[in-house]
């Protein structure tokens, strides 16, 4: 959930509202969001499923170190969503191993 008012922080340096897609679904976020923050605000927890054990992973360090939050962004896998700024029209997909979900 987004924080609407805060006792200490006056503003979060957000730009205008923009739309992007997550697994084909249209979602909204703000300029100035990281991809991870926009997804978190939209309630998305699972960023990817691991290669070996197929286990879900999401945000962990949120500063670009741990690489757990990687997803497929505009077709490119392993993009660290916590340090990649959200852009209008971005196509974001859950990552399975290092690929998008295979069509059944």
């Amino acid at each position, binding site marked *: 959930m987004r924080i609407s008012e805060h006792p200490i922080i006056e503003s979060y340096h957000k730009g205008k509202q923009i739309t992007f897609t997550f697994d084909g679904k249209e979602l909204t976020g703000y300029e100035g969001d990281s991809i991870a923050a926009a997804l978190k605000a939209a309630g998305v927890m699972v960023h990817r499923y691991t290669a070996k054990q197929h286990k879900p992973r999401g945000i962990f360090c949120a500063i670009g170190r741990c690489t757990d939050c990687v997803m497929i962004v505009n077709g490119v*896998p*392993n993009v660290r969503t916590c340090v990649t700024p959200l852009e209008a029209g971005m196509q974001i997909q859950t990552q399975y*191993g*290092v690929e998008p979900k295979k069509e059944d």
Partner: protein
Amino acid sequence: MLEKREADVIIIGGGIMGCATAYRLAKRGVDVLVLEKKEIGNGGSCRNAGGVRQSARDPKELPLAMYAVQNIWPQLSEELGVDVEYHQGGNLRLGLTDKDIKVLENHTAKSTKLGLEVEMISGDEARKLCPYMSEEVVAASWCPSDGHANPLKATLGFYRKALQLGVTFVTGVKVMALEKVKGRIRKVITDDGVYEADQILLCAGYESRRIANTVGIDAPVERQFNEVLVTEAQPKMFDIMLGVAGGEFYGHQSEHGSFVLGGNSGLQAFTSNNDNFVTNSLTAPCISRGIIKYFPILENVKVVRTWSGWYDQCIDVLPVIDNIKEVPGLTVAFGFSGHGFGISPAVSIAVSELMLDGKSTTIDISQLTYDRFHAKG
């Protein structure tokens, strides 16, 4: 505290040659002690791109390569109990220019003469085998029985198996000199005291020459510096081992999905701090440009690390594998010149036979003797 100072055989060098030979000797009941300066496999054994290749080899060492591919690699994972990630996906050596084609044709002709199945194919045929290649590739040599494996797991797999068979390893010990006793090799002088054995195998990569010199043995071997870059994992694209006639890069996609690609900038050997395995800032860019030329599809793939290592380059780019007659009891196996990994399982058989039977009967290594070096003209 456990201590062992004496054995039937002391092996100097805990790389893949040392570990694999220790395993072979132990299998034949020999009491073996391996001395290693740093960690197991810290030299070229863990610092190579994993090629298991017969094509483009000098005919003199081709028997080792062919024996390894035909008789050892396919079963090695099972034999060691460690998945060495061997893939026999073939080897493509790519050419962009007429000059490249000449180089490829030359190697192909030589290898074919020795019975290796290798052929020249067109750029389009190559792209059929590996559809990710750029249109610039005009020709290639193709050896379907070549492949690649994981050098880290193979080295440590041999080490583990040797341990299980009773071999003792001592790491963190630097060999300073060898000494003879009554005309035979006997003592290994180290920074941790003296070790003794009836027979000694010297397989310490580029350090071998320094150690051999202490008993008056020399071979024209120099160390060469090389660099490799490793990418993030990618979806499985191909199993083929790659090389290019122009030498810009070589490597493969590993079982893990990452690409392991070596190459050089021509400058890497001149960094002065190479003992610390420092890479040159210009090498990875150089390899990257090479990759993009041949595989533009990889341009968005991220490099996660670069590493470097030495190999022991012999004057004729071939190893020295021999019993040293001048120093009875001393056997050497070094000078692998950057392509030792693929033949290492076969070398270990040849060396173990040299040491226990006096000669290598299974594989012909008669062209790799210590006394083969002569002045030009």
